[in-house]
Each structure stands twice: as C-alpha cells, then as structure tokens.
C-alpha cells in the first residue's frame, strides 16, 4: 500500500474561505465508506493472472495494483462484488463480514 495521505478534516471558519464551487473539500479522507460493507472481496493471488480486470471494473477505485497484483482498499470498498463477478479465473471470493 502507498503511504496514506494525512487525514485531516477541512473545516472553514468563514464563508469567505469556502471555495466558490464544491471542490476538493477532502470529505472522503475521513468519510470511510468501507464500513457500509456486508461482504468483502478476498483475492486468492494463487489464481490471479494479473489481467487487471478487477482494478478496471471497481466503481469505487478501491482496488490498487501493487507489485503487479491487485490489493483491495478496505477503507472504501463497499463490497458490491463486481470484481468477483468479473474475475475471469474466479479467484475473488465474497466473504461475509463478521463485525
């Protein structure tokens, strides 16, 4: 994993400091949507052919490629299962979360 950006909530004290348009407010740095997940993708790298399809299909940009293999970013993965569905070798299993 790449080193994470320092998480700091942006809070403006005055409307004058708020940008004209809603942009780069940093809300996703602390709003970790991974907690919404009920099932999690687990990748069995032994079956991975490094095709990059899971990385390409992930709608939340939650699969990163590290050392040429996919790694799930569980901070943001909502567990939609698209990666598992699309994986040509079916090496991604959707496993129930235990909270």
């Amino acid at each position, binding site marked *: 994993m790449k080193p994470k950006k320092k998480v700091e909530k942006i809070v403006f004290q005055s409307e004058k400091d708020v940008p004209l*348009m809603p942009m780069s407010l940093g809300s996703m740095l602390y709003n970790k949507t991974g907690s919404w997940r009920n099932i999690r993708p687990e990748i069995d790298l032994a079956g991975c052919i490094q095709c990059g399809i899971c990385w390409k299909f992930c709608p939340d940009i939650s699969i990163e490629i590290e050392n040429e293999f996919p790694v799930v970013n569980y901070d943001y993965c909502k567990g939609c299962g698209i990666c598992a569905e699309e994986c040509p070798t079916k090496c991604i299993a959707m496993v129930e979360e235990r909270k």
Partner: protein
Amino acid sequence: MKKVIMGNHALSWGAQLGRAQVIAAYPITPQTQVVELLSEMCANKTLDAKFIKVESEHSAMAACIAASIAGARTFTATSSQGLTLMHELLHWASGGRNPVVMGNINRAMAPGWSIWTDQNDSLSQRDTGWIQFYCSSNQEVVDTVIQAFRVSEAVMIPSMVILDAFALSHTYEVVDIPDQEKVDAFLPPFNPPIRLTPTAPHAFGGLTSPEHYFELRYKLQKDMEKVPDLVEQTGREYEKMFGRYLGQVEDYRCEDAELIFVTSGTAGYTARVGVDQLRQEGVKAGNLRIKMFRPFPFAKVREILTKAGKVAVVDRNISYGHHGVFYQEVKSALYGRDHNVPLFGYITGLGGRDITPEIYKEIAQLTLAKDKPEEDITWIGVKR
C-alpha cells in the same frame, strides 16, 4: 453587417460571435435550427468549437458542465421537454458555478403534445439558480447571448436566453450582426478562477457535509444579487460600443401611465402596439417588459410600477394552484411597500394561442372598469 435571420439563427450567431468553444446540444422542435447552424459553423470553421453530439438533453448539459469546468466557454440550446429533462443538471451547473449559456425556446409542456409557445417550461426552472433573460426580437437575441457570456462569467452563474416558439424562433427579422473584432473587445476569452487541469487536479462536486453546503448556497445567492447592477453596467458598455442598450426591463410610455401592462417575451413587443392604439383612444397606457426574470429586477419594477395608476400583469404561463408566475413575482416586489397600486392578473396565450393588440385593449377595458381586482386570475380568451 445587416442580415435577415430567424430567431433560432440569432442564437447561433450570438454563440459564434461570443466564440463558444464547446457546444453540446440535442435537437428538438422548435429549436432545431439553432443546432443545425451551429454544426455548420463548426464544420465550416467559422466557429472554432468542439461540437459534441449527445443522446439526450440531460447529457448535453452534463457535457457542457464538464467542458465549463475545464475552462471552455460553453453553449447549448433546447426547448420544453428537453429543458425539463435537464432539470437535475441545471441545478448542477449553477451549484457548480459553471457559466454555461443556453438558449431555450419557450414551448408548452405536454400533454397535450404541443410545439407552440408558452413559458411554463422555463418558468418551471425558476429556482434552479440560473439567470434568465426573455427576448422579444431577433436583434435582442444576438445581443443578449453576447452579454450573457460576459455576465455569467463575471459571477460564475449560468444564463438562459429565452425566446418564444415560432413567434420569434421561426420569425425572420433584420438583425445588425455586430463586428467580430468589436465583440472580441467587449467579451475577452473565458478565464475562470478555478479550472480542471491535469497539472492541478481537483475533485469537483464531491460530497459536501452540512459543515460547508450552507455557505456554498449563501455565496451563490450573494453573487446572484450582484447581477442586476452588473447587467446595468454591462448593458451601458454594450450600448457605447454597439448602440443598443439591454437592461433588466424595458419601459415603454410608462412616465404618465394610468395603466401599465407587465409583459415578457414577444407578447411584450405586441404590448407596445396595444399601448399605442390605446393612447390614440385616449387611454394613458404603458408597458413594462421584464427582460431579466432571474434575478428578479426588484428595484426597477418598484421604481416604475409604484408611479402607475393600475398594473395589469399579463402571464403566458400558470403556476397551478397559485397564479400567473409574473403576477406572483410582481406582487412579491410590491407587497409591504409604501404605496397602494391595484394589481390585476391576467392569463392568456397558453399553448401558443396568439396574444394580439386587441387582447391588450380587452385587458385595459377590464382593468379600468374596476377599482380593485376581484380575483387573482382573470382568463382572457378561454372558450366558455
């Protein structure tokens, strides 16, 4: 250069003279010729713009918003069902502060299926945060598009330039096409304070918590409030360069009027004929044509109407369960002020039924016969 052109082509000419850089549009009757001429202009390279064909009006506005964020001057045009399909993205363009300029041809909403004019399509977009200009001649359309770019980009709020279906869109008039060099001097290239660029990436339109959303809306309203003065100032500058002044309203023979019509669009042009005929018959009539509907020209409306004996608002639209929209707006401008002008509301011309000088005479007769209005809507021309 003088040319005889249709209202729709006046929009295209305005976009070409304003040097729009990206055009994304979807054709719809009665707007089609706007897009046809723009695509020809792009093909002939008289307009150096990227023309994006899209599969719907929703996509047209989405493409315009994205191009605008990237720093391009952006133009589109639509009508009626197309405009209302865009509704979600109209909020997006104003909320995202993307100064897109759009032509809208006023066409009645279906059902019953109609291609003829009334204002319910654009007035339904009243609260989307767009500046709205209503035009009454093809000359005004060309001039308004050029000024709309300037005003919109100054405050980073999108503008709608509106004309009536057929009564203006398909009517040919002589138009003085301004010189490109002079337009360039009046309207410098779009240079937004913030833009999407790979060298300084930003996320636009992302999740905005209650911590900041309120302030974004406050800023939008505050900038909207700057528009009346800006339109005044821009209009005067345009007048110096091109000899034509376009303000927030057009008052015609209002100084000593015992009765002032409040009108908009082409019906506001016909009203001047009605006023002249009434004056010949000894009735001191005047006409206040509202050119800018959003932001509403409160100061101008108050200044002119408080001197009137009576006011008759003529609406080619209706807010069901309330009244004519211009009637509501004028009422809200006058209520609670130190005067007592009787305000009469008339609805006529829905779905493209003609508004003629005779209709103004009928309205004058009805208004002058009563001291005070007895109803909020008086229907003119309903067959009953």
